């Protein structure tokens, strides 16, 4: 008997003497035994309890061994249970057919103890390895699902919708977890809305871990005056306006924090961070290495914002440049990650800016509808090719008076 946990072996044979011989051999090896006289009974047992190996006779009344094998291989669960075909030495054709139908091995009816032990133990060992592999994979899958759920909680549940404005977002990860992030949040003491879009380099778990860090730092530092109950705008004295101070402090502290604490990881992020005053339509922003967001006017004009700085997380002490724009009634700001423009079709060509801009010539029904249109077009373009990067967009639309 091996050191491994005993297995449960199902013996299927219409001859009682054969069943008894095999049962004796199996018990001697330290395993437990279930028995069936025909195929129908065998399938009933297989469906009712956990079996690790089937010793299967071929010629049986009611349902023969081949039918059992075929049924097992069609079944998602039963197909993983190894089967050893039992045959007389003169029935090699049946053995071959059994192997073709998915049996692991065969045993002659002479039941030589050495052969019997070797084949039964080899098949049970394979089954144990397969079970462990399945267990490990299921564990990994569960961990990834937990990671995915936790990561999604770093994206906002709902977006601010100030009167006269629409804010919508679209997020589509290439893997279970993503490096892209977006955010929109009220800065209550400022009565302004922070709008964020970023893309941490790479994909998967590493990017996802850093995504949570970048996103949290930006939101926390932008809200610093709320958290520590001081007034940043007062602290700014008269040298800089409060909105610019908030944006600059948020990106500067985030950049320096990552550079000083995580330099070894070589992880950085693109970042668009705008602070919108919904009363006036003015937005101050910084754009660190992020694809320039677009302003779509109600007349169909497209204007690109500036790239103000390199990506954050690689150059400590860098001074972030702050710009301003005005969103007029009917204007929409669209920020997107390179998962849109660098989506590949099956021929290996990229979606590119020109295909994106071609979608933006038509009047926009709503911010959400605009994002749906772009996402659907990119999806159609990718066709059968895999999504190679995370796809994230955020749109901020100022309604016209008649809306």
């Amino acid at each position: 008997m091996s050191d491994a946990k005993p297995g449960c072996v199902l013996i299927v044979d219409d001859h009682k003497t054969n069943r008894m011989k095999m049962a004796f051999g199996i018990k001697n090896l330290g395993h437990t035994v279930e028995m069936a006289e025909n195929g129908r009974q065998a399938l009933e047992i297989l469906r009712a309890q956990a079996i690790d190996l089937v010793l299967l006779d071929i010629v049986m009344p009611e349902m023969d061994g081949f039918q059992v094998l075929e049924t097992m291989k069609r079944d998602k669960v039963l197909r993983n249970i190894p089967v050893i075909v039992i045959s007389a030495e003169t029935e090699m054709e049946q053995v071959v057919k059994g192997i073709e139908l998915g049996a692991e091995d065969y045993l002659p009816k002479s039941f030589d103890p050495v052969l019997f032990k070797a084949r039964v133990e080899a098949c049970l060992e394979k089954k144990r390895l397969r079970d462990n592999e399945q267990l490990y994979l299921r564990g990994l899958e569960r961990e990834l699902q937990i990671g995915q759920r936790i990561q999604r909680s770093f994206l906002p549940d709902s977006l601010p919708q100030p009167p006269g404005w629409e804010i919508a977002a679209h997020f589509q990860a290439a893997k279970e977890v993503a490096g892209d992030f977006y955010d929109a949040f009220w800065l209550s003491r400022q009565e302004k809305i922070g709008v964020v879009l970023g893309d941490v380099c790479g994909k998967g778990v590493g990017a996802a871990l850093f995504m949570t860090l970048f996103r949290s730092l930006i939101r926390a530092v932008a809200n610093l005056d709320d958290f520590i109950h001081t007034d940043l705008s007062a602290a700014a004295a008269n040298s800089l306006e409060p909105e610019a101070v908030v944006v600059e402090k948020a990106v500067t502290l985030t950049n320096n924090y990552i550079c000083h604490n995580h330099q070894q990881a070589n992880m950085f992020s693109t970042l668009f961070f705008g602070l919108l005053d919904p009363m006036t339509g003015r937005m101050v922003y910084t754009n660190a290495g992020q694809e320039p967001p677009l302003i779509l006017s109600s007349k169909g004009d497209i204007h690109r914002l500036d790239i103000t700085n390199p990506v954050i997380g690689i150059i400590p002490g860098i001074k972030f440049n702050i710009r301003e724009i005005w969103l007029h009634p009917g204007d929409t700001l669209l920020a997107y990650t390179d998962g849109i423009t660098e989506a590949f079709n099956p021929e290996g060509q990229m979606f590119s800016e020109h295909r994106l801009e071609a979608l933006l010539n038509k009047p926009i029904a709503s911010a959400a509808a605009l994002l749906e249109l772009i996402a659907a077009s990119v999806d159609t373009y990718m066709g059968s090719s895999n999504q190679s990067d995370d796809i994230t967009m955020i749109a901020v639309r100022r309604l016209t008076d008649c809306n």
Partner: protein
Amino acid sequence: MASPLKITVSQEQGQVPVTVFHLVGDIDNSSYEELQAQAKSAYQAGSHYLLLDLTKVKYMSSAGLRALHNIFDLLNAGASEETQKKMKRGILDGSYKSPYLKLLNPSRDVKRTLSTSGFDMFLEIHTNAKAAVNSFN
């Protein structure tokens, strides 16, 4: 549709010995670690000046940028603290480009990736192989 990255290495003699990586394919999530690993091997074998020939690289994702940053740090690792400080100041005022890592002939798309991310602030981009090799000193 990604094309796998192939790296061939040659040694050139300019003012100093320069290791040239001729890259063919995409530098993306599936290949950036290989590029980092090869650069590390070359560095450990004594190469201090590295030119990446990007002529045949069609696409470089942010993972590729990560590899460039990693190699940039690797080649700077031996610099004294004073030099490191100078370098950081130089990057901030735009006067510093890495003397150890340079790029040759990036495609229009790759160049755009480099400029959008700001990597061209500290990496020299050359269009002539001989001039690129001779620029290391």
